[in-house]
């Protein structure tokens, strides 16, 4: 990873956010890949792998609660590490207020994730498959 590059560099396997943390920021992957892992009953379920330009941590930003929302999965840097840029909650929400088109990409990604979730649910019900087996 380039030392002069923007963002913060995480080593392979290092956690960027942990399940149960309070989400105060959104994160955008600048370089590398990240694993999304859900910890359930002392077992880790690998939900998905995020690529460069993908973002995470956006859901707690939009949850209208007094305290920042709770993160529901752990995100770790994949093999080779990852370089991550933090996007402040206040910056993003203030700018979406002035420029709603900034939210298009977030909505687009969230829609894709809901669609993927629906497909996984249907597959689970019809085939009894565990999506993490893939």
């Amino acid at each position, binding site marked *: 990873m380039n030392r002069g590059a*923007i963002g913060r560099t995480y080593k392979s396997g290092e956690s960027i956010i942990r399940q149960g943390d309070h989400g105060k920021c959104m994160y955008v992957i600048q370089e590398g890949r990240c694993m999304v892992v859900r910890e359930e009953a002392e077992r880790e379920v690998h939900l998905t792998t995020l690529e460069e330009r993908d973002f995470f941590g956006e859901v707690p930003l939009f949850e209208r609660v007094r305290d920042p929302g709770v993160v529901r999965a752990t995100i770790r840097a994949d093999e080779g590490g990852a370089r991550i*840029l933090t996007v402040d909650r206040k910056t*993003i929400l203030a*700018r979406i207020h002035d420029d709603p088109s900034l939210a298009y990409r977030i909505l687009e990604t969230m829609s894709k994730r809901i669609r993927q979730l629906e497909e996984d649910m249907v597959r689970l019900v019809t085939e009894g498959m565990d999506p993490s087996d893939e």
Partner: protein
Amino acid sequence: MLRQPRHADLGSLATEQTDGDATFQLRDGGRIAVIGGGPAGSFTSYFLLDMADMVGLDIDVDIYEPRNYTRPGPSGCNHCGGIVSETLVQLLATDGINLPTSVVQRGIDSYVLHMDLGSVRIETPLQEKRIAAVHRGAGPRGVVEPKWKSLDGYLLGLALEKGAHLIPERVDHLAWVDGRPEVKTRMGLPQTYDLVVGAVGVNTNALKLFSQLEFGYEPPQTTKTYICELPFGEEFVERYAGNSMHVFLLDLPQLEFAAIIPKGEFLTVCLLGESIDKELVQTFLSSPEVERCLPPGWEMPEVYCHCSPMINIQGASVPYADRLVLVGDCGATRLFKDGIGAAYRSAKIAASTAIFKGVSADAFKAHYLPSYRAIGADNRLGKLVFAITHQIQKHGLGRRMLIRMVSREQRRKDAVQRMSLVLWDTFTGSASYREILLRGMHPFFVLQLLRHLCVATVRHAIAGIRSLTMRWRKPLSQQRSTLEEMP
């Protein structure tokens, strides 16, 4: 037949609503000319095509840009300090535009404030590199093998990837033909468009082309700045400057802001203020505060890349007409800081207005003008912020108070960093001037300021008394030594 479109009358309360007027709606096959392929032009083209794609609209975008951004030196550069602000880096990432390492020469995570009383490093709370130091062109004059790419070239590439066409020629004629703008280059045939986006800089003659269209456009007011690129080599830049921007608060007349920015093998010196001249540049570079940051015995090379570009300090009077809108520097930009961020914001709002609301003067008035005016309003507050900074620069007591307050905040990391954040946002352009002023008016901030001012005043007085006492005692001691020396 020559027919001039309606002028944009800023003062009138036009009741005619043309947002929905089909004449001024972009349709499939609609043609848009973007004059200027700097950040404002590339962002406008990118977002026009992106938003058109979103609503299933098929439009053609031609970018007129004669500059070759792969060529080092002034011919491939748009002359600017080359800082992408913390806010813009975040917004671009949210929009899916990551600045690659081939473009970002140095991620900045802190700045060092230099004054005659000393220096203090101010770090971001997250300790993350969120400011990008870039070269607008392929590098300064004299670079044989460019290691980094041009920011402007990268952004232009993104617009071309989206589907824009590059016409690498200079526009030398603009006219209205049947109510539509016509664009002509020296070599090409006249082309008529549904919309022309003016995205030229203030250091170009192209501004006259828009004045000649007679829609009430008066170019922005400008002032001269100074930028130079000093070659020190990557090792020195890494060791001495690191990931910090060096900001100087010196008591020099005319100088509003001075910074040294690390970039790959170069240090960029950037001076802003009222008509920076050669004498001021020399005074700045030979000041002890600047000399402390440079290698001992360093001398200015005989040949180095430098320029004195004009910058926009007050926006153009009328930034739109029917089928015409001006974005970036030729319209309004942020005072002294974050010009690329202002280009991004104005480009995006102009693009969304054209796609969703139409290209009439009334559509731009209703949806583009408020943001345009907001930039001007914020700049008026910016002038106040810089006037305050200038007073602190001028008075020793102010500088003493400032460095004391910041040093204490930086020593106690758990403390609320009020002054550090105010300075961070002022010098990096990461927040609006309104936000900076509001933060500066916070009661706790004012109380702390007064406390540090009192302490600085008392210490200043004590230092003065000590100095007087020393002067009074000196003759006595001199007398004593003379007596001792006597046989």
